[in-house]
């Protein structure tokens, strides 16, 4: 066969593979740029053009004022928002997945609406509430806002898991004279745990990276995304790229370790 037609055939057979990998490249390209430019030494205030290689930012990641402060504030808010939304959301998810009760469909709608609404609408309305009730903007208003929009995502994640659970397992526990509390602790909770963990991880990520709702409800408090936003106007320090790259590396490492651990457990 003519090598050219053969090449054309291979290309046509793998068209979807090529297109898919192209999309993956499009998704990962900015991460590559962020990493490369964390080793840049820009001339002006902005880190958009490559000048020359330098590890200055990596050796001094907190070298610019307020950057690490904003980072630790974001981590603290994300942590508490995760705790709050996971507790409230898990309770709602159990009620929805396990019980028939009145107003069930209204509750479902109330859970669904925050996810179906553009973030800017939710952000502006919550800020209107705080303005009208005279609450001063800061840590607490950000935390409240984050718990509010993370809640629905936790409910969705946990509900899916609890719904797919075999109810006979709990009946078996009860047949073996387990008290309701024992059944919950020894059977229900361990099975629901992956769903709860997924919901918690999702809210941590959503809260840590949130900009729009924080923009409206933070006052003069600066979270990490707020810092990056401000720096787009004032000048982008290389340290932003360092933190972005480090977060990426740490998270990918965690995923890999978790996968390896899971594989080993499966084997043994």
């Amino acid at each position, binding site marked *: 066969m003519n090598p050219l037609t053969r090449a054309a055939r291979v290309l046509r057979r793998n068209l979807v593979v090529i297109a898919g990998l192209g999309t993956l490249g499009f998704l990962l390209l900015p991460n590559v740029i962020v990493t490369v430019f964390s080793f840049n030494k820009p001339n002006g205030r902005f880190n958009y053009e490559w000048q020359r290689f330098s590890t200055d930012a990596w050796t001094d990641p907190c070298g610019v004022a307020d950057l690490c402060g904003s980072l630790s504030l974001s981590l603290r808010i994300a942590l508490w928002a995760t705790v709050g939304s996971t507790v409230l959301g898990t309770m709602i998810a159990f009620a929805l997945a396990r019980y028939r009760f009145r107003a069930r469909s209204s509750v479902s709608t109330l859970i669904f609406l925050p996810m179906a609404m553009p973030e800017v609408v939710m952000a502006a309305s919550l800020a209107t509430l705080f303005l009208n009730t005279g609450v001063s903007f800061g840590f607490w208003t950000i935390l409240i806002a984050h718990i509010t929009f993370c809640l629905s995502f936790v409910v969705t994640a946990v509900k899916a898991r609890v719904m797919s659970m075999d109810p006979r397992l709990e009946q078996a526990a009860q047949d073996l004279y387990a008290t309701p509390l024992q059944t919950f602790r020894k059977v229900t909770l361990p099975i629901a745990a992956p769903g709860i963990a997924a919901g918690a991880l999702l809210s941590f990520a959503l809260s840590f990276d949130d900009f*729009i709702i924080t923009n409206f409800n933070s006052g003069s408090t600066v979270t990490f995304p707020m810092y990056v936003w401000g720096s787009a106007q004032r000048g982008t320090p290389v340290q932003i790229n360092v933190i972005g790259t480090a977060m990426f590396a740490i998270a990918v490492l965690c995923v890999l370790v978790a996968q390896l651990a899971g594989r080993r457990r499966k084997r043994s």
Partner: protein
Amino acid sequence: MSTFTATDQPPAPTAPAARRKRRVPYWLLLPGILWLLVFFAAPLVYQASTSVQTGSLEDGFRVTWHFATYWDALSEYYPQFLRSVAYGATATALCLVLGYPLAYLIAFRAGRWCNLLMVLVIAPFFTSFLIRTLAWKTILSDGGPVVSTLGSLHILGLTDALGVTEGHRVLATPLSVVCGLTYNFLPFMILPLYTSLERIDGRLHEAARDLYARPLTVFRKVTFPLSMPGVVAGTLLTFIPATGDYINAELLGSTDQKMIGNVIQSQFLRVLDYPTAAALSFILMAAILVMVTVYIRKSGTEDVV
């Protein structure tokens, strides 16, 4: 709120234990639902009231049922509304075209690389999206690789004529904003697509091939119709946030690409014209709800056909 407490119990006489059991869901719901009522529902009521207030920052705002704010806001900012819908719809279509092959690849062709590819799709999330959006400033910059490639292929002249780019540059044009929107919401398209593709029984493909369907026919008649739930979920998850977004227009666009989110943000946080911001938010919410409802209806019937 009373509907969620003990007052709502049916009157049937029951043993105390059974009655206690019936109350369990209400106790589970109480804290979370109260939270959503106070911090999600009540704010919308406050916003509704703000949208019909008049006044100034010094004298305070008072409810005067001034519905003209809605009309004024709409007539002044309809270009931004139309632009938001156009950008949001374009970005959603691009996400579908770009995301489908990748979701298909992960679901059917990746084999043992499936998990790795999945991690790579989610991995960008681990870097703050604002930092990644700023990286597009570098990629699309005037002296950058994209502009020089498109320029040497004489594509920029064509896109300039179409009004997608301006003056032989990509940054601060509709193209860069739509590119940013597509990039930012692409994973929200890929994940639901993958979920619904992965559920498809591989034997259906075999059956179609056994019946001498060509690959394209298999896709058109079997794969795509069965992935409709993912397509609908993915387009909603991209279109809604993309239409309300103001970050990409702010970071990658100029004043000519301002979307409705930018207007709401500046009215609320800079101009401090709360009634206009509230009215615009409600118009945006209503417009999106209407579009989403129509879309779900339509896609539902197409699914059956």
